[in-house]
């Protein structure tokens, strides 16, 4: 969740890795775009993917290296797909953009200089931080935390104090405030972040300070914590506010420039930006709430998987995006991606959200990321154990088989040696892979230190990559109480489809989907996302006018958060309605024109962590609150096996509003129904199917007679397959951007939508 790259990373066979451009076309038998067009661009650290869709389901894609000014690459890609589709810029009705800009600005610390204003006594808030020390960091005498995002000399303490019920404990000292604003003016900052204690309960002091700043500092962005995150927990709110102020001016300038360049090209359609939680924001809102775009790219991939699943009638899917350096896993349940209420950025890469670094307390797609990409380097440690990653050969020098100076063995090298990838430029990408270099790297890096042959070494590296990805899948499924067996695995990224079926076997998953255009899946996902926005607020403490009713501790002078069953239903209803209205207003649409999803975060009384649950439909009544509490207890029982009907607290209320995307219909073709026909292979290739065992240990029974563990299997070319075509494993299906391995015991068929669907014939759930 912390890698500075997003989306589709270089497929091992993609010629894009050499600086050329590959292109794919599908679903448009006419060859020319018709009707309104939608353009999507996903800019990652290494590659820029651009996709054009027309009203008839035609899809044109391109993948090219990300340029120094990323807008250049985006514009070049847009030109290319428009040319190939014969589309007119003026017909583009929508542009959707996934970007790593916010992430990179934060990680590389090149954001706007920000001043930070907070309550007197808390000037050390950011400097102290709350960074966890995870795993080996805890034993490292020389470890240091991520530095404070604002230095002390730009931090100011404001004499004022609000209490937890919104009461003014100490009025804002106007004179002192004016002096502070003068000092800020002398600093030449681009933005001011304001986070005062308990501002979520009473924003008056923040608003007044902001007014003073705006008056004195024209042209400087002023961000109040209440506008970014009106929720308790001052440190998380402060960091999120500061990040918004840091990224805002950069994002705003970037989007203005991008809009200009698109206009030069003749595209005047509105520009939308992918947000971290799977909603698309208007460019204006993305500039104002830039920190909400931090997980832009990965979110697009997950939304693509959701759409593919929904088109195939598979509401429960596991998304796996395997790139060059990492693999990311996420879950879509009932057509909804798993969402985490906060995540961290800039710490160690880690599955499960314990990564350290800076906490961004905004909803994001719940991803687990592991260092297992096509370029991840395999090595033998001093104890004689085979390890994988976290180092990666990346795109430069790339895997040893790229022949560009890499000498350490990678997952891609292993896949080449095992025959899963072609050495001869069979794929239309054209980059020939050097098998001898792959063998040499595996021999010196793995086989010799372990005293095994090169094929056994390669098989073990392949298996280790599967295991690493399995741990990411495990985090987002089993650890969240989700049984993955009934899910379909949808795999994106060029490197993934070689591993997907075997990964699925580990979880007893019987269906694997290799989408059309899997290599540019994140960009395709952008086309599918709806304009949407979420607002959340801490449930106001009881006792405050307009608050949520009495606490469950009658007569208490200091009651604590409201018990769910004791909350005032009317006040909850009013608060949720207000959140929905605010969210719609920020999107710039009328609340009547949006779909509203409402949620509430509950916890056991006195607990430190909450669970977010949907609020039952209809106006909130006492029965609604009782049902929420029951749902919380069900969740605890189903997820953690805890049967405990203790009272719960209502902590946070959420409203998410969405505007259905005005997009062309999903790519599709003629419905072939159940008509299936055997496909014709284009050739054969010898591939290793013997599992991870060294040869000669009796584990090669799957290929009896092959001896060396290799078997000749048919190779199918993806572009020659038609909907309804069917084939049985073992087989390979090769496309310009990816190769899919269909292991023995699996079949594959081409769906009407063009996706390749792998099914396990017999698979015991494990």
């Amino acid at each position: 969740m912390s890698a500075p790259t997003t989306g589709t990373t270089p497929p091992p066979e993609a010629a894009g890795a050499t600086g050329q451009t590959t292109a794919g076309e599908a679903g448009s038998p006419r060859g020319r775009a018709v009707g309104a067009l939608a353009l999507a661009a996903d800019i990652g650290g290494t590659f820029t993917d651009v996709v054009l869709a027309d009203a008839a389901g035609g899809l044109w894609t391109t993948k090219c290296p990300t340029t120094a000014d990323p807008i250049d690459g985006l514009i070049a890609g847009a030109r290319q797909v428009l040319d190939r589709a014969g589309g007119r810029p003026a017909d583009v009705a929508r542009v959707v953009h996934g970007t790593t800009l916010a992430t990179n600005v934060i990680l590389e610390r090149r954001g706007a200089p920000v001043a930070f204003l907070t309550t007197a006594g808390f000037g050390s808030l950011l400097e102290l931080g709350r960074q966890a020390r995870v795993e080996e960091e805890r034993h490292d005498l020389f470890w240091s935390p991520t530095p404070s995002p604002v230095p002390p000399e730009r931090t100011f303490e404001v004499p004022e104090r609000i209490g937890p019920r919104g009461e003014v404990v100490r009025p804002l000292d106007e004179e002192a405030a004016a002096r502070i604003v003068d000092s800020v003016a002398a600093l030449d900052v681009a933005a001011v972040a304001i986070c005062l204690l308990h501002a979520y309960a009473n924003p008056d002091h923040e608003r007044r300070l902001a007014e003073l700043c705006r008056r004195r500092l024209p042209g400087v962005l002023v961000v109040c914590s209440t506008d970014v995150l009106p929720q308790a927990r001052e440190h998380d709110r402060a960091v999120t506010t500061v990040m918004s102020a840091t990224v805002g001016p950069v994002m705003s300038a970037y989007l203005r420039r991008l809009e200009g360049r698109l206009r030069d090209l003749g595209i005047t359609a509105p520009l939308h930006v992918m947000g971290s939680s799977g909603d698309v924001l208007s460019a204006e809102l993305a500039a104002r709430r830039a920190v909400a775009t931090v997980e832009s790219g990965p979110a697009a991939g997950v939304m693509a998987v959701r759409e593919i699943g929904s088109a195939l009638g598979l509401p429960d899917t596991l998304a796996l995006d395997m790139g060059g350096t990492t693999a990311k896993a996420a879950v879509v349940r009932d057509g909804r991606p798993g969402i985490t209420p906060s995540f961290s950025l800039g710490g160690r890469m880690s599955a499960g959200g314990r990564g350290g670094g800076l906490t961004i307390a905004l909803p994001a797609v719940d991803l687990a990321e592991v260092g297992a990409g096509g370029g991840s380097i395999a090595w033998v440690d001093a104890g004689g154990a085979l390890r994988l990653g976290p180092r990666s050969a990346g795109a430069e020098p790339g895997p040893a088989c790229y022949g560009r100076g890499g000498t350490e063995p990678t997952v891609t090298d292993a896949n080449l040696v095992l025959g899963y990838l072609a050495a001869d430029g069979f794929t239309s990408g054209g980059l020939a892979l050097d098998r001898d270099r792959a063998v040499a790297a595996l021999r010196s890096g793995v086989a010799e230190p372990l005293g095994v042959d090169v094929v056994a070494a390669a098989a073990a590296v392949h298996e280790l990559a599967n295991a690493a990805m399995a741990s990411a899948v495990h985090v987002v499924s089993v650890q969240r109480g989700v049984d993955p067996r009934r899910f379909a695995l949808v795999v994106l990224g060029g490197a993934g489809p070689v591993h997907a079926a075997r990964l699925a076997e580990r979880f007893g998953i019987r269906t694997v989907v290799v989408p059309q255009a899997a290599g540019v899946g994140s960009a395709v996902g952008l086309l599918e996302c709806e304009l949407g926005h979420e607002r959340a607020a801490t449930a106001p403490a009881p006792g405050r006018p307009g608050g949520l009713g009495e606490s469950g501790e009658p007569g208490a002078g200091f009651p604590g958060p409201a018990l769910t069953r004791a909350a005032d239903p009317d006040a909850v209803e009013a608060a949720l309605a207000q959140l929905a209205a605010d969210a719609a207003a920020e999107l710039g649409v009328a609340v009547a024109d949006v779909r509203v999803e409402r949620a509430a975060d509950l916890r056991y009384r006195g607990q430190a962590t909450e669970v977010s649950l949907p609020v039952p439909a209809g106006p909130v009544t006492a029965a609604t609150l009782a049902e929420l509490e029951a749902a919380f207890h069900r969740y605890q029982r189903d997820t953690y096996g805890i049967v405990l009907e203790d009272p719960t607290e209502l902590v946070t209320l959420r409203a998410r509003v969405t505007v259905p995307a005005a997009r062309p219909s999903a790519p599709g073709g003629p419905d072939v129904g159940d008509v299936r026909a055997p496909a014709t292979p284009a050739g054969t290739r010898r591939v290793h199917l013997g599992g991870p065992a060294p040869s000669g240990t009796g584990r090669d029974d799957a290929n009896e007679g092959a001896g060396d563990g290799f078997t000749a299997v048919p190779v199918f070319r993806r572009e020659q397959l038609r909907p309804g075509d069917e084939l049985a494993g073992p087989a390979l299906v090769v496309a310009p951007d990816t190769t899919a391995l269909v292991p023995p015991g699996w079949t594959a068929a081409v769906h009407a939508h063009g996706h390749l669907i792998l099914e396990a014939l017999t698979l015991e759930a494990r």
Partner: protein
Amino acid sequence: MTSPPTDRPTDPLTAEVFRNALAVAAEEAGIVVVRGAHSTFIVEGADAAAAVLDAEGHLVAQSQSTSLSHAASLRSSLPPVLARHPAAGMAPGDVFVTNDVYGGGIHANDLIVFRPVFVEGEARWFTGTLIHVADLGGLSAGGMAADATDVFLEGLQLPPVRLATAEGPVADIEALLAANSRQPDKLLGDVRALVAGTAVAARRVDELVAAHGPDGFAAGVTAAWDYAERRMRQEIAGLADGTYRGAYPIDDDGQVPGRELWVRVTAEVAGDTIRIDFTGTDDQVPAAVNAGASQVLSGVLYAVRSFVDATIPMNEGCFRPIEVVLPEGSLVNPTRPYPGGGRHIAVCAAVEALYEALAQASPEHTVAASGILQGFSIGGRRPDGRHWLHMAFDFGGSGARRGLDGLDAAGGLFGGGRNLIPQVEPIEAAVPLRFEAVELIPDSGGAGRWRGGRGTRTVIELLDDALVDTRGDRLRLPPPGRDGGSPGRPGSYRRRRPDGTEEVLPAKATNLRFERGDRFVMETSGGGGLGAPPPGA
């Protein structure tokens, strides 16, 4: 091809896969315990542990979220459970609980729970969980009985007893626990989370045994131990052979102010082994600064692991090359009824003494001493009679490192991060306290070529009458500098009256009466500096 990919977990090619699967089993138990716990002290995995062990108490795997201060706790407390309840008499569904500081435990409030995992009718493996529960009686609400003079004042004592069977919780035990707690509902919530955690890990072990077969699983465990041991030995062999000594003082025991106590250690590095001997450490005292043996063992392992490759997986193999001698009846291995609740004071002294000793074998690892974790609790009664409690702590500054300044306010709890410090807003929403400041103290780190980390000042206004407990150290004797560096600025506990007058509070005290309008002030000590400061600095 659906055969298991990892059915030979001893194969070096797939050992890593098997080790990960074991770690996941423990990790899931840890997640369940932390997510399900009611005690507000369990914030983001503080003071929690989860592990898989064999039937002799050997550590198979533990959760990454296991607090380092508990690295040895589960491992050390299983054998006493088995001594009282032989495995042969256990049945599936049985769960046991203990908190015996003399039997591998920690202190009354840290409940340790075990569940046997049956293979072919035999209790062959165990899963264990541990957290600091809400309250279990004793002198002080929440368990911070800093002036306890025997173990009985620290809370209910639990020898290993059966907590649940296949039929469910043992009602008599639950009733006994609840009757001894100031917050019975929270306590029972915590206990059930502990039990649920062991169940989740046991399910995963079952699955792994099914996948690999009983012998395959056992062979995989042995291979994982051998691997960790091999890595530890290789790393220890990199330390210079020799006999090294270190010592670190404790301010006093709180009962006899001003009388310092010493933890002394001799570390003998010989080839790929280390012998760590605490002979010479002062005798146990009838005060809560002694540390149970398992706690000191955790500290020893932590200190040694700071000198070797930190990525070595934590299991029984890590313990094998290290021989530890803990003299019975000393500060580092007390006997009944000497109290052990303030164990981190002796453990952190042991860690500093070991750092001093081991740095002689590896001078690039030289560090100055750190400020320690300073705890406090503030509690009272609501108008309806219910008890409220805020129990928390902050860290002193870390000692300067060779080449790097010390970390601000991050010292003295085994590499804990500041994520363990709760945020102010939720506290103020729940209890009658108002925080006036949580801030770094300028220039509080000891001067030196590399500066010690800074300490913090926390100022809390009491909005109602309350009782305050303190538990601190390294205040009278602030963390010394090393190699010419200066000591850190000493911290303190104080009461500030509404008229502005201040009094210094004892650092190891319970039930100090505060009135509404008083301020509780806690300053943590700065870390020591390293090396003489450059001239003119």
